[in-house]
């Protein structure tokens, strides 16, 4: 830097000179460097656009799956808490309905024969039932009329 002693009264006393300089060939190389940077930027935005495309395609599918799951949870959890029995009864009925649906001739007769062996109505039980439902007069009139 050159040293100079100057008395300055106003800006008019000064030379309007640019005190800065640039590296050699700076302006000659500038456009090439700018072009490289622009190409890099375009490459980055192309990559970003294709990434966004995939996400855009998957987004509605993910939303639907999440909504469906949420709906199931919102219905099932409180329902189970407030009506636990109806769920099990319903399940039993559903099971019976399914098993009846699966009946054929062979296993139908098997079921009948199983029932006759295990669920026999005893005579004593029958008399007890009849005496509780009808009086002696009604029994006599039925027997002799």
């Amino acid at each position, binding site marked *: *830097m*050159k*040293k*100079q*002693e*100057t*008395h*300055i*009264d*106003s*800006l008019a006393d*000064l030379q*309007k*000179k*640019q*005190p*800065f*300089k*640039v*590296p050699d060939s*700076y*302006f000659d190389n*500038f*456009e090439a*460097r*700018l072009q490289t*940077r*622009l190409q890099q*930027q375009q490459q980055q935005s192309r990559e970003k656009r294709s990434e966004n495309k995939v996400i855009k395609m998957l987004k509605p599918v993910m939303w639907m799956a999440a909504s469906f799951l949420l709906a199931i949870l919102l219905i099932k959890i409180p329902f189970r808490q407030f009506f636990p029995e109806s769920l099990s009864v319903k399940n039993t009925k559903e099971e019976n309905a399914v098993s009846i649906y699966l009946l054929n001739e062979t296993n139908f007769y098997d079921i009948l024969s199983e029932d006759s062996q295990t669920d026999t109505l005893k005579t004593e039980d029958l008399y007890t039932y009849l005496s509780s439902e009808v009086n002696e007069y009604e029994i006599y009139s039925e027997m002799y009329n």
Partner: protein
Amino acid sequence: MQEDQEIIDGLKSKNGREPAFRALVSKYKERLYWHIRKIVINHDDADDTLQNTFIKVWNSIDSFREESGLYTWLYRIATNEAVTCLNQAKKRSVPGLDDVGKYLIGALRSDPYFDGDEVQLRLQEAIATLPEKQRLVFNMRYFDDMKYQDMAEILETSVGALKASYHHAAKKIEECLKMTE
């Protein structure tokens, strides 16, 4: 060198955009560089800012309104980029430093690409102590002889306010130069 209107027409067309952009860069790179350099002082910052300016120009071509001229539009982008760069550089150099003037004086004294004499250094240091608006106006008027009307479009301030800014800036600088003798 192409006229501005030819460049604008090229930029607006599909096929002519790239050659028009190259013509624009070729025509304005030096002018914009020196405008930016006076704001940020440091050469590397000026280089980055100049590239950012042209990249922004390329990305904003479709939003260019021909009401303002090409020249003022470019200078406006360059000025905004330079001020942003300066604020970021100031934060990076000394965290918590609020005084831009101190940062600029430090940058001047350590700049390997400063080619002026002692008087010019004193002048630059005096300019560095000005508030941002006055600094911009002073540089554009004193060194570039820019018309107040053009400055008004670039800085989006009235001509009257700019003239007042310049007058205050020039007075402060003269006082500063007398004090530092």
